[in-house]
């Protein structure tokens, strides 16, 4: 039986998610004959593909006991950097590389303050959220930049492998990589140990700061990549691109059974949570329920299904850790 992979919690939480998911899927099938068709399923994913790519790295960050509120701003900034450079005549390929580099830089800045200066990640990445968005505004102002090369626009839309567009292929590959890293590699083990108790990890010779830094750099690069894919899918970039996505992303992670206090969670649960949210939104579309109501439903679902059952045990762990820190 693998350690750091908790079978009993898997049984309780992931099973519950799977049951709810099955109910939603059955409902969707009963409402629409096209639901199970491959193109509909691809479409289902593609509507939120950029967010669910970022969900993967956010899962690791939250299990590590931190948060990254700046992801949506980094997504927007990545897209704006690419658009701005392309508009100035830089080749699209080079612009994309610079965009990813800017994402990495954002991650380094976040990681420096969180890992080395030990400021709370909530505050650091909130500042990042504002600052990176501000830079995006400076680059693009109130315009919309488009007219990207055809190959770039097609990246976001055209089927690449079978019916799967590039971003969906990236998502599946990343999902497998992240599942392997989180649950079967040394790095993943460190992510859990640090999330459980940063000081205990340090006392065991774990390079706490490097692990946190790595996570934030990965977060920056992946968020920027997702932002660029978003630009490709929409065919145009505004300063407000991806604005507000961070909350949807964090919601999905928590709904997947990841503890907001760190140290607990599985990528399987997050995978189920992604499916559940996507199918739920699709089902509500079929019932002609609009976007705002959909968000309300998902918010309520989050509160009732995640917070309440976990409240007692999480708070206990939280206070224990607080007490230790206070000491």
């Amino acid at each position, binding site marked *: *039986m*693998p*350690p*750091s992979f*908790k079978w009993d919690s898997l049984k309780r939480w992931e099973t519950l998610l799977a049951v709810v998911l099955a109910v939603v899927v059955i409902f969707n099938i009963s409402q629409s004959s096209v639901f199970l068709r491959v193109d509909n399923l691809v479409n289902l994913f593609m509507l939120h593909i950029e967010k669910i790519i970022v969900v993967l790295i956010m899962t690791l960050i939250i299990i590590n006991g931190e948060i990254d509120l700046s992801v949506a701003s980094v997504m927007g900034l990545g897209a704006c950097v690419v658009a701005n450079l392309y508009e100035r005549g830089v080749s699209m390929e080079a612009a994309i590389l610079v965009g990813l580099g800017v994402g990495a830089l954002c991650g380094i800045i976040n990681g420096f303050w969180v890992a080395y200066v030990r400021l709370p990640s909530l505050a650091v990445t909130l500042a990042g959220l504002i600052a990176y968005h501000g830079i995006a505004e400076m680059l693009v102002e109130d315009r919309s930049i488009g007219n990207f090369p055809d190959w770039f626009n097609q990246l976001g839309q055209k089927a690449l492998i079978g019916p799967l567009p590039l971003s969906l292929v990236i998502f599946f590959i990343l999902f497998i990589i992240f599942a*392997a890293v989180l649950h*079967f*590699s*040394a*790095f993943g*083990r*460190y992510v*859990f*140990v640090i999330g*459980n*108790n940063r*000081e*205990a*990890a*340090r*006392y*065991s*010779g*774990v*390079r706490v700061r490097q692990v946190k830094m790595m996570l934030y750099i990965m977060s920056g690069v992946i968020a920027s990549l997702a932002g660029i894919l978003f630009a490709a899918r929409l065919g145009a970039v505004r300063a407000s691109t991806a604005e507000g996505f961070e909350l949807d992303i964090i919601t999905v992670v928590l709904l997947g059974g990841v503890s907001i206090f760190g*140290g*607990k969670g599985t990528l399987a649960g997050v995978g189920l949570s992604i499916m559940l949210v996507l199918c739920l939104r699709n089902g509500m579309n079929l019932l002609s329920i609009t976007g705002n109501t959909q968000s309300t439903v998902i918010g309520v679902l989050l509160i009732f299904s995640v917070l309440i059952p976990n409240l007692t045990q999480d708070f206990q762990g939280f206070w224990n850790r607080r007490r*230790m820190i206070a000491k």
Partner: protein
Amino acid sequence: MQPILKLENISKAFPGVKALDHVEFELFPGEVHALLGENGAGKSTLIKIMTGIYQPDSGQILLDGHPIKIGNSAQAQGYGIAAIYQEPLVFPDLNVAENIFIGHRVKGAFVDWRKMYREADDILARLGVSLDARSQARGLTLAQQQTVEIAKALSLNARVLIMDEPTASLSAHEVEQLFNLTRVLRERGVAILFISHRMDEIFEIADRVTVFRDGQQISSKPIAEITRDGVIQDMVGRKLESFFARNEHEQGELMLSVRNLGKRGIFSDINFDIHRGEVLGFAGLVGAGRTDVGLALFGVEPADSGEIILKGSQQQIRSPEQAQALGIAYVTEDRRQLGLTLPMSIAANISLPSLRKYLSAVGIIRRKAEQATAENYRQRLSIRTPSIWQEAGKLSGGNQQKVVLSKWLNTEPQLLILDEPTRGIDVGAKAEVHHIIDQLAGQGMGIMLISSDLPEVLAMSDRILVMREGQQMGIFNREEATQEVVINAAMGQSRSDVKV
């Protein structure tokens, strides 16, 4: 004369320990009553019962002859029982007067500031201290903060004042001022319970001395009837016979030399050598700086002066990873918070510091190898568990300690630092840990054994280094180190004073 506070037949047990065992204790008005005892003798538990933090399992507390129940610290205050500690509990953003009256006078919608300042000035004057009631607490020295706490106790009309190591962080001059205050209070009829590890202070201020040992009251005499040696005899008179006897073995070459090691404000001028196969015990009272020396060697809190010479080469140890790479392992005294990741399995805990050994070519953890290691240690150290995949948090204290030992033995260290390795574990597991220590030394490991359990340190060590308030008081050979010698050094007397 009737005692203000009388504790009758008080017992209090915690899992595995009898902290107080049928204790009798009296406090009379106008006396300074010193309470002495080694670490873990039951002093803290007694204070916590008197201030309502703990409830006794049996026995009763009498105030002026009437039985009372102290349910919490607010009730203790109501009965006129106040306490001040080594670290004063003042609110830095409030001023002196506000701190004095907080919780009992600064209430309601409006505060009569003029009246409050007048009363505060009045109390400070009665104590004979010149402290401005309007000054902010933030800028006060530790001694002044304690004065504020004493003023607060006075404003509450406290009749019993508990002073728990109040002098530990004070300078000699400040101690003198504190004693003057104490005498003022004594003259006003306050009963004072005074705890200190400094023998000189006790002879200076106390009227009566009570000694605790292993949760029992051993003696209680007026100051005129006691001698230093007598008190120390009372404190240490524990039997050593139940202890594990070390096997004879050869001591190897020099492994570690520490020269003038220091960390500002924590410890200074620490000098010792550890050879292969040697157990160097670190004795002293809690807070003497022993753990800090261990943490400096392990790189958790690096030292800022002095030299660490490991197998002939000087090392600057800046982080635990680096210490580990140099062959140093540190078994922490706080096994639940710092030694283990409780929600993770025994196997994952054991492999954590040496996880790199278990990686396949693509960086995946080889669980079979991880499991084999865990099973090996489970057998070697007889860790009692249904499965090595069980959460470490579900084990008993002794078995948790064996997991922590396993995790560090698995890094194949040459120098093993053990910090309170048997604290809070049962007798059987304790004997097993002692056996393990002996075996490891026999295999040539150098061991630094920090322990507040005096008989343990005496039985297990080849030599004993005694620390007191961040200073090294001396290193004693096995033959010359008796309980009396060690406790004398730990409490601040040089070797020549000791008459046993």
